[in-house]
């Protein structure tokens, strides 16, 4: 099954999310209360690591394991990044989670976060419903 490798990549990522405590509601409060460096350290290091990796892939024209070329689609600006970004930020501090950590919080034993995940799916659905009426 060709998608199994992504399941394994997800397992790896899930373990890292828990062990580095970025799924912790407490760590998120600390980040936004500016009382701990932890989350800034994690995100900053992740961005620098990703940046170097992307540059190396570009510079050396590295291909996928199957030999296909690697290309990354650029992100287009629209006002959603401002309005949607703020809305997500409000929810991030309340739930202590962005979408990845939602799955990880459930897996780590806080099964009630399933309700949060269902509500996030509902939020995505409502966005799809009203998408065309929103400023972009």
């Amino acid at each position: 099954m060709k998608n199994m490798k992504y399941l394994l990549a997800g397992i790896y990522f899930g373990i890292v999310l828990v062990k580095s405590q970025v799924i912790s509601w407490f760590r998120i409060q600390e980040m936004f209360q500016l009382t701990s460096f932890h989350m800034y350290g994690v995100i900053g290091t992740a961005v620098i690591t990703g940046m170097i990796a992307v540059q190396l892939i570009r510079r050396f024209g590295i291909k996928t394991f199957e030999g296909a070329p690697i290309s990354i689609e650029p992100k287009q600006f629209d006002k959603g990044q401002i309005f949607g970004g703020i809305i997500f930020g409000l929810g991030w501090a309340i739930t202590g989670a962005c979408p990845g950590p939602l799955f990880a919080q459930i897996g780590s034993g806080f099964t009630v976060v399933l309700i949060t995940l269902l509500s996030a799916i509902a939020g995505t659905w409502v966005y799809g419903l009203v998408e065309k009426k929103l400023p972009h």
Partner: protein
Amino acid sequence: MTLLQAMLQPWHWAIGGFLIGLTVPLLLLLGNKAFGISSSLRHICAACFPADISFFKYDWKAQKWNLFFAGGILIGAFIAAHWMQGNGEMEIAAATKVKLEQYHLHNYQGLLPHEIFNWSNVFTGKGLVFFVIGGFLVGFGTRYAGGCTSGHSIMGLSNLQWPSLVATICFMAGGFLSANVIVPWLFSILN
């Protein structure tokens, strides 16, 4: 301390950040996939409740890898929590602990406060706010922004995309407002 014992402790931010960052090249090398998780929520909508909405009319099956990745996160978190976890209280910054006490949160035995994230809260004001409304804002906001912390803040910034920088600044702005003004207010009316 052996390596195994060190792995059971919470990981240092530099190790955690490095390993999270490696997910970017890992997914590119595995199949030219751009790291991002919030899209999985859209695929779930498209697969289960498309309701003739144009935003959900696309070939979600072509993006199935994203659902496998999200499922893997759930399994990986289970593994880490059950077999890779030393027990003990969270170490929390003193200034934040003072605030938590004001919120009537006293149990630091897990990654999340048991006093909130508990099935008995589902049909209470706390459940409405922390699960239903909070989750809705996350799902609506990330889709409106076209990505979340993984897609914009890590993948987008790794690829030097300025719209992702705008999105990240707005995530942080919303978070600062929420954690310092809205969350304290919510606890004051819910407790």
